[in-house]
């Protein structure tokens, strides 16, 4: 049966998480008739995040209630192209969300300003170390086509909308005590002061200072006190409830689209939200280099509908965005054999290692924490004075400590050698679990020829469409970075003279779908200045259809050490700006190919 065709609108937004929410608000306020199609349900704090239900670890962490339902759609994975990809049958390593608010409902809120170290990565490393420093397997490493200076006002915009609590490290070029001295210059302070620290972050900060590093509180979109953002959204002060990551916030202290940009968009008569609406395809008009709308299924009735639109904003999170591009046949799929094509290219992830420390007799009260109670050092990341030459890797890593969402089913630290059950296990748990803290590194992940996304030849989703296939493993660059990070982590850990310690592993690791690593997936529709190697231009406009804008970390050509959303949000605001200031007046390519 042919899909029922609806009346054309000015813009259709696919997915209503962080990026969809930002575009929804900005475009409907600018006078466009906007329809947002979200596959999940509506979310409100009152209905969804109240005591008593919200503080239920089993329901939200182990049973993944707010996450994408893998039985309907998942990805297949393999480490190398030689293997058979198999479906990720239960989500594990990453956890994209599925409701109005997207992953923004249950993120931790760590919010960063990515620097020119990332945006100018190729030219910086080539200048300093010569072109040979970048291996041929990493030939997709590139400058992004944006600069920190251009992004500053959009970072600022996102931080003020999202109640980011932090301490500036560089105000208009002047380094500030207490902040991150390696960050780019910012025009003004964070909207809110940093969150309180916890004992573990304090100990870490002391050790890091002694070692000559520059610790600072992690900037986070957890309001350190009550706040009203520029759009009038009100936040409560963070309660350090300890149920932050993977949970909705009862206190409205964690910035989420459902309390900020989405209600702001809903105030506009131009905006319409349709929940339970699963987009299966973006429709295109190949001759004119345009998209014409989308095909979607109403999940409540099963009906298939066509929503024509003059403009489409794709905002369904990294993997889904790449998947929809492939399913819709927009842009040439990437082929690693010939290194041609753009969709699925530059898929990157994250490099992590960590140590665990146990201090006899100390109480960390690890259940008291927020998404941003950690302290961090950036000495091996945004610090360009850190010489990567002798260590042979591109990129960097941050090191942090401080508890964040350590709940008792999933987090049961005991020293190595403890039995896994019985009285001895219980004794160790009672003695050590709250006397323990971790120190963790999170590093970037660089593009590699054989890390990519394409359509799976075998497995299908609930709409009988091929699943997305993920081919990924950590490569030499990640191994080297990890070895260096483990050394730094272990030296810091040792300097704290813990009673017992499990060291960070610096050996090469292979990526596995269990356990959780992070939902900081990047790449797949990389941005760039060359349409041969990039899917979108630096305004996130598709090279293949000028009225298609592709949001999300999938546009990152590589992944940095920072969490992604500060940049994802800033890029979304920048796209909204250019649509309003240029594209609406004169629709067409914003950059000539």
């Amino acid at each position, binding site marked *: 049966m042919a899909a029922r065709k609806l009346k054309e609108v000015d813009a259709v937004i696919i997915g209503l998480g962080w990026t969809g929410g930002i575009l929804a608000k900005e475009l409907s306020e600018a006078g466009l008739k906007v329809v947002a199609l979200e596959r999940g349900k509506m979310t409100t704090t009152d209905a969804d995040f109240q005591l008593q239900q919200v*503080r239920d670890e089993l329901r939200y962490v182990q049973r993944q209630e707010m996450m994408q339902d893998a039985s309907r759609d998942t990805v297949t994975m393999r480490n190398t192209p030689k293997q058979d990809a198999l479906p990720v049958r*239960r989500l594990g390593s990453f956890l994209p969300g599925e409701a109005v608010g997207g992953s923004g409902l249950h993120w931790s809120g760590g919010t960063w300003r990515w620097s020119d170290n990332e945006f100018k990565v190729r030219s910086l490393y080539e200048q300093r170390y010569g072109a040979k420093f970048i291996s041929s397997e990493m030939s997709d490493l590139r400058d992004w086509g944006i600069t920190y200076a251009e992004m500053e006002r959009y970072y600022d915009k996102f931080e003020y909308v999202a109640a980011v609590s932090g301490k500036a490290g560089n105000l208009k070029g002047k380094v500030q005590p207490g902040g991150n001295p390696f960050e780019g210059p910012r025009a003004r302070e964070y909207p809110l002061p940093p969150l309180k620290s916890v004992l573990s972050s304090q100990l870490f900060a002391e050790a890091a200072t002694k070692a000559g590093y520059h610790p600072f509180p992690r900037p986070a979109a957890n309001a350190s006190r009550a706040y009203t953002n520029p759009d009038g959204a009100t936040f409560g002060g963070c309660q350090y409830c300890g149920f932050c990551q993977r949970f909705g916030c009862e206190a409205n202290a964690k910035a989420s689209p459902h309390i900020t940009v989405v209600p702001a968009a809903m105030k506009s008569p131009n905006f319409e939200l349709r929940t339970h609406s699963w987009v299966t395809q973006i429709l295109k008009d190949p001759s004119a280099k345009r998209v014409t709308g989308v095909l979607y299924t109403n999940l409540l009735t099963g009906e298939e509908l066509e929503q024509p639109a003059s403009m489409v904003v794709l905002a369904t999170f990294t993997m889904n965005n790449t998947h929809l591009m492939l399913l819709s046949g927009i842009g040439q799929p990437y082929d690693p054999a010939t290194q041609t094509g753009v969709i699925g290219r530059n898929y990157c992830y994250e490099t992590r290692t960590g140590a665990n420390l146990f201090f006899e007799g100390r109480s960390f009260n690890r259940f*008291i924490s927020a998404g941003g109670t950690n302290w961090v050092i950036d000495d091996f990341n945004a610090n360009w004075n850190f010489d990567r030459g002798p260590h042979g890797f591109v990129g960097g890593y941050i090191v942090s400590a401080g508890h964040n969402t350590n*709940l008792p089913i999933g987090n049961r630290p005991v020293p190595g050698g403890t039995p896994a059950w019985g009285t001895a296990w219980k004794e160790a748990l009672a003695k050590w679990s709250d006397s323990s803290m971790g120190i963790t590194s999170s590093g970037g992940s660089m593009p590699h020829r054989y890390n990519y996304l394409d359509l799976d030849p075998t497995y299908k989703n609930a709409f009988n469409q091929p699943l997305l296939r993920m081919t990924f493993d950590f490569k030499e660059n990640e191994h080297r970075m990890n070895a260096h990070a483990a050394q730094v982590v272990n030296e810091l850990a040792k300097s704290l003279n813990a009673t017992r310690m499990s060291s960070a592993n610096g050996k090469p690791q292979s990526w596995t779908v269990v356990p959780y690593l992070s939902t900081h997936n990047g790449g797949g529709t990389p941005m760039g200045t060359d349409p041969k190697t990039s899917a979108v231009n630096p305004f996130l406009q598709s090279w293949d259809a000028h009225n298609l804008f592709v949001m999300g970390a999938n546009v990152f050509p590589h992944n940095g050490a920072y969490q992604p959303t500060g940049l994802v949000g800033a890029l979304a605001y920048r796209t909204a700006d250019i649509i309003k200031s240029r594209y609406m007046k004169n629709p067409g390519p914003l950059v000539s190919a």
Partner: protein
Amino acid sequence: MDRDPEGRRAFLRGAVVSGAAAMTTTLPATAAAQPAAGKAAASAPAAPGYVFLSPEEGAFIEAVVDHMIPADSLTAKGTDLGLHTYIDRALASGWGKGERLYRQGPWKQGTGNQGYQLPMTPSELYRAAIPAANAACVKAYGKTFDKITPEQREAFLVGMQQGKVTLENGPPVRTFFGMLYQNVMEGMFADPIYGGNRDKAGWKLVNFPGVIATNQQNIDKFRDRKMPTNPLGIADIS
């Protein structure tokens, strides 16, 4: 609360008795202020009896949870904490029936990095694995798991954990053991509303404060000092 092992066993063997009516609920002071009247039954532990487990499976699970969580000065034993009930309810729940699990073939074992690849739901996995585990026990010790000595149980569980036990014509032993262990931990530390963690014994063991978590003051007040807790669960504030 039914603490008498004989009586409990009688319940578990299928007697249709509602335990909930006999249970009393004491609301801690902080929660008593909240409008809780009329919902007291929700805060009582799950009624005894099995929804999913067969008698053989029940005996196996009871023996596992009592071995892993023995009675000692720290907690009562696994069955007294309701861990067997937790597992039974979990297997009967949407999760046990394969909710959120991608279940289309073809089925291949895959590499360790590719995660769970069996065609079975969790409840199907238990159903297939328990008789196979008991058969392996009979082969090694002449008796099923619930009848062997504590030393034999220890050796057998370690064997499963390390993949040294083979489940003949059954699922990969480490896959089953991994799920079993995870479920025991869930029963120990999940909210008591799910049937385990009775009296919040698991939470008390690790000083977890439960669902009330307004810590803006506590974060400074209890820096480097153990915060006294009297954990509240979902049912206490419902």
